[in-house]
């Protein structure tokens, strides 16, 4: 196989990595917000439930969570949802892994939403009471104070920790390999097994590196853009 062929073969896998990355970010980041608000709720039972869920999700390896989402429906409820989805998306001779990608995405979204929620909570709780009170004494209501005064300060504070999580996320997508989703590491392993080529496995690192470099630049720009004020 030529270098170009290997690169293109690996890139097909990296597209799946990017898909998991994008879907997790687009769904997990918004989902973290209600979880954060539940974790800060004044209604104690809700707060307790929310914090316990976050504790469990953050306390268990992501790989295990992928296994749980993937195996529990069929083992416990005899519900073959992921396999059926795989079959439903299969067109040629080769079995599609679409169902397994869904399973991975759900595990990732839940996991990252919980991580994001803690970042949001930390950011919101770090804003001083004085900022809220300054808004209230001017006659603003709670929603105005949050949207017009607190939010931007929170965003400024959460960008650095969010950047860290986002960079971790692209590397975590390699975990999808554990239920044989065809992401880049899986593809590289195929080359190792079928063509006795080991170097593509190491070469796959270059894809991550390049993408992380790109993320670093973009996230750094956002951080810089928000640095015009000091809170």
């Amino acid at each position, binding site marked *: 196989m030529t270098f170009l062929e290997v690169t293109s073969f690996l890139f097909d896998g990296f597209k799946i990595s990017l898909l998991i990355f994008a879907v997790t970010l687009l769904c997990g980041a918004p989902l973290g917000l209600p979880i954060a608000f539940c974790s800060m709720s004044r209604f104690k039972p809700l707060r307790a439930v929310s914090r316990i869920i976050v504790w469990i999700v953050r306390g268990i390896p992501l790989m295990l969570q992928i296994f749980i989402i993937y195996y529990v429906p069929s083992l416990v409820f005899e519900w073959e949802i992921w396999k059926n989805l795989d079959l439903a998306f299969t067109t040629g001779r080769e079995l599609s892994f679409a169902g397994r990608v869904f399973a991975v995405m759900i595990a990732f979204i839940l996991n990252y939403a919980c991580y994001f929620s803690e970042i949001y909570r930390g950011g919101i709780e770090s804003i001083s009471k004085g900022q809220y009170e300054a808004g209230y004494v*001017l006659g603003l209501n709670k929603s105005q104070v949050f949207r017009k005064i607190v939010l931007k300060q929170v965003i400024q504070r959460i960008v650095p920790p969010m950047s860290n999580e986002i960079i971790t996320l692209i590397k975590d997508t390699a975990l999808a390999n554990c239920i044989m989703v065809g992401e880049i590491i899986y593809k590289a392993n195929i080359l190792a097994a079928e063509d006795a080529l080991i170097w593509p496995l190491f070469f796959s690192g270059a894809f991550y590196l390049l993408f992380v470099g790109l993320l670093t630049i973009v996230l750094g720009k956002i951080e810089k853009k928000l640095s015009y004020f000091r809170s």
Partner: protein
Amino acid sequence: MAVLEVNNIQKHFGKTEVLKGITFSLERGQVLAIIGSSGSGKTTLLRCLNFLETPDEGTISVDGKTLFDAADHKSLSDEVIRQNRLHFGLVFQNFNLFPQYTVLQNVTLAPSLLKTGTAEEIQSKALSLIEKVGLIEKKESYPCQLSGGQQQRVAIARALAMNPEILCFDEPTSALDPELTGEVLKVIKALKSGDSTMIVVTHEMEFAKNVADKVIFMADGVIEEFGTPEEVFDNPQSPKTKAFLAKSFEEI
């Protein structure tokens, strides 16, 4: 008629009684200075007036209208509290400017959100207030680019933009370096005219003496002494007041 009537305000946090029945009234245009050692409840009183704390007992009336009556305060909705706050303004000890907004935006934010006028009216009023506090050349600066004294002057302009009937100051110069207190006190002094009623909690005795129409000396949650500056400073009746004043002036 009194613009502000405060009757028997009591407030406790847990077991500590912080305000033990505060009663006073204020005429329109008057400046009231509140002095007293730290922990005597001055901040808590201002916070009660601005509805950041809910008194356990007592009533608060503005222009003869009862805004708050502890007897039925449970009926006060968020919206009513918000409306009540519009009668008062509060300048904080540590400014609490909004860091992401420029000086001008800090001043226009609340009026724009609450639509107190047209955009042009709000803008030109804000500019004239910023001019009044002497910061017109800083109108596009962010709070982090200003000195403490400048930030406090912006905070004053911001509070004035909502046209409060009674403007409260909680130790407006305590967080400032000594050389910056003068500029802030000068601005407050210049506001004293016509119908702006002010309550100033302060440790600046000279300021209280020269600017205030009425002085309250608070100790342990009660008004120990109330009167004109001459009465309180030159002829105090209570031993606590005498001791406090002796100590304050000895420090200078």
